[in-house]
Structures are given as structure tokens and as C-alpha cells.
């Protein structure tokens, strides 16, 4: 995880993406873990990956809104992905990671357990999310891919942050 953090360089990744032959059909995905599950988020939305730092609580907000932090002068809300998926709040410490994504004009931080990898995903490999009704995460996913024989659920960042993105 720590390596993933330090070696992450969006410029380098984006450059590689530009060299890919079928750029239209493939995209770069930042993979992260919450518990035992692997998820991925489109790299084009990712602005920054940083270690967890204590937040300032926002009163009277849902449990997955962990509060706000100061990112270079901007007040950025942090959403707990685990809590968003209905699995209880993350006991966050310095080992946890915040992925800052841009949703429209807004910046939102996603609290996850770790960032594992950045992979290219072919659009044709993306499978529809099976309709497991009742699964809390279901509404936030846009597809599922298998990478190295491991299932990675692609999250739709704007849907994770739906309550924020709505406005």
C-alpha cells in the first residue's frame, strides 16, 4: 500500500494511457481495497491520493460523511466508503488512504483501506453488475472486471458521493 502511494504519479500514468493503441476502448483504473473487497475508480476523476488525517466533524450528517479536511485551503468533505456500503464506519488511522476525486466542480475525498494498483481495463472486459438486490454497494457500482483472477468492482464515484453530487 505504502509503495502504491509513493509510486503514484498521475502524469506518468496518463502519459502511458496516451500511448495505448486503443485508447478509446481502455481506461486506467485506480484499484483500492475496503476490507477484503477490491474496487476501482476511473483515474480521470482522481486528483490526489493522500494518507488519512483527522477530520472536523460535520454536525447532523449521515454516518458515512466523516467530516471535512483542509486540502491546500479548500474545505473537502471525506466520505467513508465502507460506511457508504453499509458495513459500518472505518476505524481510520494513518495507514488508511483518502482518494480525492473530482465530481463536477466539487472535490470529495473517499476514505478507503488501501490503494493497491493502477491497471488498464479494456472496456469489453467490463461486465454488468449482477442484480443482487438489497446489496448496499450495488447502486454505487458501474461494472465488474476480473484482474489477475481477482474480481474488481468499478465504482461510480459520482454515485458514491450522490448526496454531495446532487447539489
Amino acid at each position: 500500500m505504502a509503495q502504491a502511494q509513493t509510486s503514484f504519479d498521475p502524469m506518468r500514468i496518463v502519459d502511458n494511457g496516451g500511448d495505448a493503441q486503443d485508447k478509446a476502448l481502455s481506461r486506467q483504473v485506480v484499484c483500492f481495497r475496503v476490507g477484503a473487497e477490491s474496487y476501482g475508480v476511473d483515474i480521470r476523476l482522481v486528483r490526489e491520493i493522500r494518507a488519512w488525517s483527522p477530520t472536523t466533524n460535520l454536525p447532523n450528517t449521515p454516518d458515512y460523511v466523516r467530516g471535512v479536511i483542509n486540502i491546500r485551503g479548500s474545505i473537502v468533505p471525506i466520505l467513508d466508503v465502507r460506511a457508504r456500503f453499509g458495513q459500518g464506519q472505518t476505524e481510520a488511522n494513518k495507514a488508511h488512504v483518502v482518494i480525492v476525486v473530482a465530481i463536477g466542480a466539487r472535490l470529495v475525498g473517499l476514505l478507503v483501506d488501501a490503494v493497491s494498483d493502477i491497471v488498464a481495463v479494456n472496456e469489453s472486459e467490463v461486465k454488468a453488475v449482477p442484480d443482487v438486490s438489497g446489496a448496499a454497494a450495488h447502486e454505487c457500482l458501474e461494472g465488474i472486471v476480473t484482474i489477475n483472477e481477482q474480481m474488481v468492482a468499478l465504482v461510480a464515484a459520482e454515485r458514491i458521493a450522490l448526496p454531495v453530487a446532487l447539489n
Partner: protein
Amino acid sequence: MDEIAQLRQTYFQECDEVLSEFEAHLMALDEGRGNAETLRAAFRAIHSIKGGASAFGYRRLVNFAHALETLLDKLRNGSATLTADTISLLLRAADIVADLVRAAQSGGELIEKHEGAVLDALVLRADAGALAVAPDAAPTVASVNLTPAPAGKYHYRIAFNPRSDLFQRGIEPQLMIAELRQTGSLAVTADAGAVPTIEAFDPKRNYLSWAFELETATPSETVAETLSFVADDDELAILNLDRAVGNGVPQNPATEATKATEDSNGDTAAGSARPSADIAPRPLAGSGDDALGIAPVVSSIRVDLHKLDTLVNLVGELVISQAMLNEQLSLVPTDKFPGLIRGVQELSQHARNLQESVMSMRAQPVKLVFARLPRLVREVAAETGKRIRLLMIGEDTEIDKTVIEHLHDPLTHMIRNAIDHGIETPEERATMGKPPEGLIRVSASHIGGKIVIQLADDGRGINRQKVLARAIEKGIVTRDQQLNDEQIDNLIFAPGLSTATTVSNISGRGVGMDIVRRNIQRLGGRITIRSTPGIESIFYLSLPLTLAVLDGMVVRVGGETYVVPLSNMVETLRPQPGQVRTLVGGGDVLSLRGEYVPMVYLHRKFAVSQANTDISKALVMLVETDASMRIGLVVDEIVGQQQVVIKSLESNYDAIHGIGGATILGNGRVALIVDVSMLLTGGISPDSPLVSNAA
């Protein structure tokens, strides 16, 4: 943004300014403060709008502005008379111009007949101008000599030595000559001496210069204006031959390039071929008489507001970093690093100065809002049949631009209210022994780091019995509540309260004053009213100098830190046993000097864990909401007083009830700013049963 779009944007910005100047000139004329120069300035204003409009191809605007300009021209040279009627017509025309400008700006299209009636009236008035005889009753502005120059011919020698890029600038000298020819008899001599041989000839370059001899009835400045659209002033020299031979025709020379220094009253009317420069505000004061109190022109540049805001934000960051540095420095032993400490102290001084300078860049004189008031007063007075004199004081007081922008609506509302409700009809006033003309006084001043705007009328004041009865009827207060006069007066800001017996066009729907209050609160300001029945009512508006920083009290509740705006604070106290009573229904009140103040426990309101729940150890901050309502805000501890930079929570999240914004403290952590006025209204659970009655 491409260049044309940028020019266009500049043009529209300037249209706004020019139009408000235009209205100010008309109002000055209306009040008899104007003179011939005022009228000329009004003409120039419309002329600039027309010029830009024609450059950008806004046909409708050009046509209308042209009709308006024609009438103004007739007024200016004395072939039409300025009556009160004409001024009304001109004011209406100004509105139409504003509509057309807006339509052009938004790309929308107004309905076809929008300007029809006013356009016809303008043309009619201009045509009839010479014949119009001002009726005795109509107040003419006859005392003003509108014809500065005796009728007759002027002789000019105009030297036009354009630079070689004349064609690149899109200028066709032939059109210019044609236009000059329309003004009188013209003799043209072209100097082709600079034309090179055919080998060296570049068809894109201009090699010619011209000399014109013009005999015309038009004063020199009009000639200069005609030319200003095509030529930069360094290319043009206008010599008045009449003066040269010493017959003493008064003139307002425009661009005597060689004589510019001689004429201290010179009106630099000539602009350049670029429309943006052409319509830039010009010096309006003529021959030393500054009728409108318009200050001499200071050289300035236009900066995109976004850029300025970015600068303000950056300086905000700097101030926060500075605070962090200071906090760290307090850990360093003073004697070990004297240089470091001195350096940081200097840095902090510079940062503060920088911040002040940047903030002052956003400041603008309240004149920008005040300038629209005379017209408003005039209209409302006419609608209500009342006679009003408006007195404005401190128009040069500067406030943050955003505050200025949001000040117009509340002020409009308050003035309408003052005229409609406050000031009596001339007959009523006569029976009360007051002068028939009501007085409205609007003043702005800096008081203790705030801007205070007072709006006073010498009308009938607030009818307290009526207000109280109405408030009880509407359930805003209960019958047994003891209110002093001031509290009753301020009930007019409560939603749903209007004491006007009839709902008029102007006011009386009971939505006015609470919206005024809300608007002022949104700007971080406060509004109160003080009234003396039968004598006067005075609104006091206090507004922050800037919206970017706030003086706050940093408080701790459990593990959280909040900032309470200092402007809301009255006092802090540790409640004595027995001072806090619980009412039936669960809410607590604080008994304070015979009053009962509802208490809000911040840790309950904001669901903070690990907060102190023992009231005997808690600290109560007595705060005042914008509704002049007092609340005892219960916190754990006061950390200190600090100036904080206000950050928007809404840029990345949504508004949270009871939170007015956020700031970054010296340790880099975010602290939320409490919106005291919202604590009692709505929210999750009201802490006090008084809420519904008292808010």
C-alpha cells in the same frame, strides 16, 4: 476567451457604468443641479453606448440610442427645451437602453414593440423640440444656459496624420470624410508625399495624410467625437481658426494635440478606434464646476473579478500559514533565535498589510448603489403623491463589492417602505406642522471596523400599538410577552407582518422587511430600526467591511472546535446554580437580570460526543441573533479570540443548518463557523419551547 468576446464583455461592463452615470446626470438636471456640461455628459454617455453597439452590430440598440442621442443633441444645442416631462421620457429611454443592452448581452431578443412607444415619443419630442414651449407650471431648467456658444459658424483646420496601420485597424478614411462633410462645408487636401515608388509600395500600409478645412455650426467637441471613432488622438489635431484669430468663441477643445497642455478644462473626448477604449468613463466635469461631485479621474486598470478573488484567497492562505508559523514559533525559546523571531514578526506585519491592501481592492464606493436612489425616490413619490427630498451623505464610503451588489435590493425596499408607510401626504404633514416635503436621509460611514448605513425618514414613525396587535394576531408574539419599545419596533422584521391597511403596489405585502433582514444577514450584517412616533424612523444597517474575514471567538465543545462570530456576542458567563431552569417540555432557560433567555446546548445541537454535560461547569455565551433575539449558547470552553478567513463549505459540500462556513485554524485543522441566527430556527430539535413564539 477570444479578444472580441473580451472586448464585448468590457463594453457591457461599461454600458452599466455609463448608464448609471447617464441617470445621475438626468437626476441632476431634474433637481436643477445640472448645467450645460451635465447635458453634454449625458449626450456623451449615450453616444458611447451607440458607438460600441454599432461596432458590435447591435442594430436595435444603435437605432434606439440614435433617436435618444438626437433628442439629447437638440436639447444640448438649445433647439429643444428641457422640461420635467422630457426628463421622465429620457429616464424611460434609459430603461429601454438598459433592456436592449441586456438583451444584446444575453443574446436574447426582446419583443418587437418593446421600445416602440418610447422611440416614437423620442422622435416626436426631437422633431417638436424647436416648437415646444415649456408651460409655466413645468419646471424647466431654464436657469441653465444650454447653449454655450453663440449660433454661427466655426472654422476648424483638422490635421489627420494616421499611422501606417490605419487599414489594419479597419478604418476607411472615406467614411470619415463623408461624415465630416455632413456637418458642414468641407475642403479636403490629401498629402500623398509619403507614397513610395511602386516597388516599395505595400498595399496594406497607409501612406496618406489629410488636412481638412471645415466650416460648421457644430462645436469642436462634436467634431472630435465624430473623429474619435476612427482616429487615436495622437493622429489628430483640431485647430479652431476662430480662436486662432482671436474672436473669443468659447469652446471646449477636445484634441488639440499641440495645445493640450494649455487647456486645463480640456475634455479628452477623443478615444481610439477600439470601442472598449472609446466608451471608457470620461472626465465629466467641465470648466471646473463639479456639479455631480464626480471626483477627478484616477488612472486605473480593469481586472477580472475572478482574478481578484483568487488573489484574495491566496492572501487568505498566506494569513493562515502565517498563523501556523506563529503557533510553531511560540514553542521556540525566544532567546535562542532572535533573528528568526524578528523575521517572522516582520513577515506577519507584511502579511497583514498585504491582506488589507488586497481587501481594499475589492472595495468600492457606496455611490454605486446610492446613485440609483434619487430616481427611485422620484418614482415612488410620484406614485404615492407625496413630496420627498432625498439627502445622501458619505457616498464615497467604500465597501466590499459583493456587499455593494447585494445592497441595492434591501435599500430599494426600505426606501419604498419609508415613502409608502413612513412619510405622510403633504396635507397630513401640514396639519402636523411639518414641512410639506418629506425628508429621506441616507448616509454611509465607517464606524468601528464596520460600515454603518442609516436610512432616516421624518415621517410618522412606527405605530407600535398597531404593530404589536398585528404581531399578536399573527402569532409572532404572545399576548403576555413583555416587550419594550425597541423590541416592538423591530417586530417589523418578523416574517408575515405588515401594518399597511391596504396592500399597495409599493409595499404592504408583509414580505418586505423580513427579506430585507435576511439579505443583510446573509452579508454578515445586522439591521435594526429606531423610531420616534410622529417624528422619524431610522434604520441602522451595519455591514462588515469585507466578506472574506471575520473576527471570531474560538470555542471548544467536546473534541470539536467552533468559531462564533464576535459580532453576535454580547457577554459570557458561568451560570450560578438556580440560574438555569428547565421548562415543562424540556427546554432550558437562563434567568438573567429578570429576563429569560432560551439556552442552546451546542453539543446537543451538533451531536458532539464527549462534551461536558454538567451545566455548572459549562460556559454560557450570550449571543444575539440578527433578529435581536438573545440566546444562551452553552459551550465547554473559550479558546481565544482570532481573526479567521471565511471558507465556503458549500463549494464542496452542502449547506449545513446552523453552520455559516468554515475556516482553517493555525494548526491546519478545519473549524466550523456557527451561524448563531439559525440555531433557534428549524433544525433538528428545538431546545426551547420559546422558539416558536420568539423567533
